């Protein structure tokens, strides 16, 4: 049986005033995957997530969630989608027990045992008022409320924002346990690349509202290379090769960041006649920073439809 994607967007576009914050976004999140949705502040991640959930209206484009158009979701399908908003909003006057009772009234498949287990695990009393909880505890309660209806699709908007390292680790470990249920799809946005590396099997990177990367996490990490060229005398001009992300002069060295280092790039670099060539691997955080930092400029497109594609950066400049 062919399983449809959990999330599909087609040319999703949103303007705020004259500014285009999401630009013709074509996103596919396969069922059962954990998708890390990355981007710098203002890249359009939260707006995209809000458009997926109907909180923000798209100016153009379509959204499908669990195989149904998002604006025509039936209640049964909607009850299989959970959302954790940025900052974990909830009614501050409610106790945890009241929040559980309030939220459970909307869902036919509410798993009270799971809520109790999560609250016990985090040592949270049902009598505590939500506004009196720390940010970490609020995140834990929100997670419990989100997973209790046994959702097929979990959408989390920067769930670890503002949490300290220990709480973040606890939160992520709980998330990993939740992920282990087969068939569950998770899309989460984050600024913390370490978190993404731990849980996401695919990533998408938005740069100024455009999806520049959509591939497996390890594929992205392995495809971004830093190449350090050492020269004797005057440094040459920036080499013209496909997949070049950035070029920086550091003393007698030229530091290049490239996507999909291959024979074509090697030949272009060797043509510069450097004294030495050093090819460095980058971790996800460094790869992300190198890929997205600096003044707005055209970046090599990196959207991979085929996970097994050999060439990763040869689609040319945007």
């Amino acid at each position: 049986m062919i399983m449809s994607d959990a999330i599909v967007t087609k040319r999703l576009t949103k303007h705020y005033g004259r500014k285009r914050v999401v630009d013709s976004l074509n996103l596919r999140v396969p069922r059962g995957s954990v998708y890390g949705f990355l981007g710098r502040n203002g890249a359009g991640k939260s707006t995209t997530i809000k458009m997926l959930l109907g909180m923000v209206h798209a100016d153009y484009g379509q959204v499908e969630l669990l195989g149904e158009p998002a604006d025509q979701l039936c209640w049964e399908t909607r009850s299989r989608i959970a959302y954790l908003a940025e900052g974990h909003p909830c009614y501050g006057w409610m106790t945890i027990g009241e929040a559980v009772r309030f939220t459970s009234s909307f869902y036919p498949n509410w798993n009270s045992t799971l809520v109790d287990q999560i609250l016990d695990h985090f040592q949270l009393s049902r009598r505590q008022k939500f506004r009196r909880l720390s940010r970490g505890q609020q995140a834990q309660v929100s997670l419990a409320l989100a997973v209790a209806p046994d959702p097929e699709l979990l959408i989390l908007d920067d769930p670890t924002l503002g949490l300290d390292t220990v709480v973040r680790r606890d939160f992520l470990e709980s998330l990993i346990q939740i992920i282990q249920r087969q068939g569950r799809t998770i899309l989460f946005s984050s600024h913390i690349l370490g978190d993404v590396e731990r849980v996401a099997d695919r990533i998408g990177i938005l740069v100024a509202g455009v999806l520049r990367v959509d591939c497996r996490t390890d594929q992205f990490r392995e495809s971004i290379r830093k190449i350090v060229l050492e020269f004797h005398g005057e440094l040459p001009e920036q080499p013209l090769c496909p997949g070049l992300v950035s070029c920086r002069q550091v003393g007698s060295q030229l530091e290049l960041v490239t996507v999909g280092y291959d024979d074509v790039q090697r030949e272009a670099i060797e043509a510069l006649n450097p004294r030495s060539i050093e090819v460095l691997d980058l971790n996800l955080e460094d790869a992300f920073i190198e890929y997205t930092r600096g003044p707005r400029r055209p970046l090599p497109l990196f959207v991979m439809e085929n996970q097994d594609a050999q060439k990763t950066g040869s689609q040319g400049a945007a």
Partner: protein
Amino acid sequence: MLKRLVVKELRESAGLVALAVLGMACVLASLTGFPILPWQQRSEIYQYPFVRDSLPFYFALSAGGLAIALGLKQTAWELGQGTYYFLLHRPVHRQRIFIIKLAVGGMLAMSLSGLLILLYAWWAMTPGHFPAPFYWSMTFPAWKMWIAILTVYLGAFLSGIRPGRWFGSRLVPLAAAISTALMISDASWFWLAVALSLATSLLGVFAIFHYVQQRDY
């Protein structure tokens, strides 16, 4: 689910309702000369109830204030707190959530302001309180003000839910509602006040549901 939503709205309005009840008790005490504080003495009442008294001013202050505060609390406050993100993605139609908000808010504003008029009328009609005849027809102007409260509440609700470039432009529906409420209170005939109130309320509800569906949260 509907019960939980009603309870939530009632719980969130409880503070405002308590404040309004206190304010209305003071208004009633002032109109009837009833001492509020233990050391006060019962004062003589010289104003003819419902005919020539301070009810319009006090009513506008207390009932109007409650209607405005309720309408804004149910909308702008939730926007400010970000709790719409907690509520609006639940598997329930967005319109149903707002119908419950409007029903609870409208019911509270109307019942409390109606109660104020009824209690004042009961005092006025009870022999021994004011040495003048009482006819229910004397209360018609007060009931016209009561009808206008619904328009004010809907105006405040609309101001809270309607997006605007800045605070001033967001308050345009409330300003329009207050102007209409003054017209309703001043209407020459009771039927005209009812018709005006019905028309503006329908318009307000229509506009509210338009923005509920169309606005970005």
